[in-house]
Structure formats: structure tokens, C-alpha cells
């Protein structure tokens, strides 16, 4: 499968806010009711279409628990987009946003597009953070904002795709240097293989690698 660009995303925020569930809903269209604490980083990938261009999202779902944080931080580097998630039913997860944001800004490119997500919007009766508060925080810090539900899938597609649209817009405006790997953007395989004879279209650099055997 070929793509025009690959964008690296990170998903960050307190433990239990629903980061892994958002990813699972986006990649597999499933909901996982049990909290399977993430340790380290779990990966997901999906193609999306922006403006007629195929874009591969490579998503790094990080562990929110404090004890893993110092390790996962080092993987923020080179992300083009970040989903910063809190839980609308737990105010403390909203209160911690500033510290997550600081971390993200410190460990990644200044061009990174950040989408603030108030998750668990299906739990309206237990709401602890008003939508307006989320909006205000986003405005103040220059983030995009959405409320989502990983359970009902409400706004999940939109959250991932709108982030990609914003990155794509920045590329077109020349704000992102797509050739600088630190920006978390890669040009897809078919865009750069012109003379080399790679064994497979999805392999960008045929010099370094042998034939990927797919499934063995």
C-alpha cells in the first residue's frame, strides 16, 4: 500500500482517560471495556484520505501512568501530531493538561499539531469538566479541541482526521519541512523511488533492506 505522506502521532494524557480505547476504535472500530494499562508504547496504523492524498498515520499510544512517563517521553520526538486526552468525568485529568503540554512542547517539534480531546462524552451524567472549559484551554494554548467517545465512536474519526488535515495544511503552507525527519512527516515510498528498483513499493529505501517476506 502506497501513501503520499506518513505522519507520526502520539497520544498522551493521564492513565485511564481512554487513549488506548481511542486508538482501538480508530484502527479496529472496537471498544475495550477493560482498562488494560499500557506500559511503554503501543502502535497503531491506518490510512486516511486527505484532499485526495493517501496518508498513513503511524500512531504511538503512550502509557499515562506516572511511573512510565519518563520513559515514554523520549518517544515524543519526531511527532507531527499529538492527541492530548483528558477524561470529562475526572477533573484531575483536566488539571494535569498543563504538565502534559509542557512535556510535549519540550520533547517534540514546535510545529507539532496538538488536538485536545475531552473523552468519554457518552458519560454526560457524570460530567465533571464543562465543554467550555476544554474549549477555553485549547484557545489559550493554540490547540484544536474536540469531545469524543471511544465507546460510541462519536468524533473519533474526526479527531484523528482533523489533526491530519491541520498537518497537511501546514505542509502546504510550507510551515513543515517534510524533508526534516524531526517533524514527524515522511514522504511516501512511491514519491521518492524513481530510479531504484526496490522489490516492493512499500519499501522506501531498497538499499538498506532485503525483500520483506510479508508473513513467514
Amino acid at each position, binding site marked *: 500500500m502506497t501513501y503520499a505522506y506518513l505522519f507520526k502521532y502520539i497520544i498522551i494524557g493521564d492513565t485511564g482517560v481512554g487513549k488506548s480505547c481511542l486508538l482501538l476504535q480508530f484502527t479496529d472500530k472496537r471498544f475495550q471495556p477493560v482498562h488494560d494499562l499500557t*506500559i511503554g508504547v503501543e502502535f497503531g496504523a491506518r490510512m486516511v484520505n486527505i484532499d485526495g492524498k493517501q496518508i498513513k498515520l503511524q500512531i504511538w499510544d503512550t502509557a499515562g501512568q506516572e511511573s512510565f512517563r519518563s520513559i515514554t517521553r523520549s518517544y515524543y520526538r519526531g511527532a507531527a501530531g499529538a492527541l492530548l486526552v483528558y477524561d470529562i468525568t475526572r477533573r484531575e485529568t483536566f488539571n494535569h493538561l498543563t504538565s502534559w503540554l509542557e512535556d510535549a512542547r519540550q520533547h517534540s517539534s514546535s510545529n507539532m499539531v496538538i488536538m485536545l480531546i475531552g473523552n468519554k462524552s457518552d458519560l454526560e451524567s457524570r460530567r465533571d469538566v464543562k465543554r467550555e472549559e476544554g474549549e477555553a484551554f485549547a484557545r489559550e494554548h493554540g490547540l484544536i479541541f474536540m469531545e469524543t467517545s471511544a465507546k460510541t465512536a462519536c468524533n473519533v474519526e474526526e479527531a484523528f482526521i482533523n489533526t491530519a488535515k491541520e498537518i497537511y495544511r501546514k505542509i502546504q503552507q510550507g510551515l513543515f519541512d517534510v524533508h526534516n*525527519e524531526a517533524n514527524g512527516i515522511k514522504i511516501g515510498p512511491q514519491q521518492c523511488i524513481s530510479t531504484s528498483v526496490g522489490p516492493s513499493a*512499500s519499501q522506501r*529505501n531498497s538499499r538498506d533492506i*532485503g*525483500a520483506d*517476506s*510479508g*508473513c*513467514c
Partner: protein
Amino acid sequence: MKREQEPKTAPGGAGEAGPDGMAERALVPACPKGRPGRLQLHLLSGEFDQLRDFPIFESNFMQVTRLGEVVNKVTMGVAASSPALELPDLLLLAGPAKENGRLQLFGLFPLQFVQLFVHDESRWQLKVKFRTGRAFYLQLRAPPETRDREFGQWVRLLYRLRFHSAQGAVPFTQEYSWLEDEEDEEDQEDEDGDLMEREELRDMEARLDPQSSELWGL
């Protein structure tokens, strides 16, 4: 750079290899790790800048249930986030992607939160247990002629990791509860008997496989 030193083609040329790489492997049975594995190739494919230069030791496995029923294919590797490290610090898990069967990286886990056990030595099975309690079983998939040796490398690795954490070099050790776990104690007993033998084998095998010996003396 590390990858530049690795042989790029198998004897006879990559063109003669079967689509699953088995033909190449059959030509070099004595050195299954002498060329980059599937996981390493995946990381070198250009999509994972941050992980591409990690030294990796990896094997292909079948995920099985506790009783040995096959679940799916998994490639597991251990990697060092810095070449200066004495031992690997990361566990990498990959498997075939749903849509096209190509190898896909599923997760990257700090080894300080993971414990490896021998589950069933006679069937080349390991148990991988996360600090969160999640556990699964992996059976090595390797050609019969190299299977024991490759499994031995994993066994050696898990001992070295355990010694390392027992020496307090790794934070969070005190939070572990492996040893209280009944099932793990069983595993523990299984392994303790082999310990000395494994250590003795180490030097010999290091000589047989210079490439791996660079990687933490496995």
C-alpha cells in the same frame, strides 16, 4: 553505523531466496542471526527513524495458549535504546498486520516492566509477563537444526536480565510481585536447575556466532 556492517545478501544472492526467506536461511544454518531479522528489517524500512539504529536480538514465535494451542504469529525482539548499554532495555513485539499480513510493530515495552520465563523447554516455549499482570506464551519458530541454540540464547538472556534486576540496577524492582505468583514459582524452579549449564555454554556459543556475541554476549 551498525547496519552497514551486516551482510546485505545471503550467499547465492537474495534473488534465489524463497518468498518467505527460508531458502536463504537454509544456506546459512549455522548463523541464523548473522543477518538482520524480519523485525529489524521492518524497523529499517524507513518508517521508524527513532528505532532504526537499535541493536536487536529477535526471533519468530507462535503465540500459544498456556496449553499450547496456536493463537498467531509473533516476532519478539529485545533492543537496546543505546548501544552503550550492557543489556537490552526494551522488548519489541510485532506480528502480521490484519489487512496485508506484513509484519507490523505492535508495541515497545521497557524491559524493567516485563519478565521472561521459560514455560516449557521441551517445546521451546517462553512466557512473557508484564508488570500489569498480562501474560502470554510464545513458542519459538526456527529450523530444527538451529532451534535449540536459538532458544538457548533466549534462556541466557532471561537469566542475565533477572540477575541484572536482582542486583538492583533497575528501578521498580521492589514493586514486582512475580515471585508471589504461584505459577511463576513453578517456572522459576524449572529454570534454576539449568542455570550453571547455561552460563558455561555462553563462551562457546559466543565464538560460534560473532554477530550475536556483540549483542550482550548471547
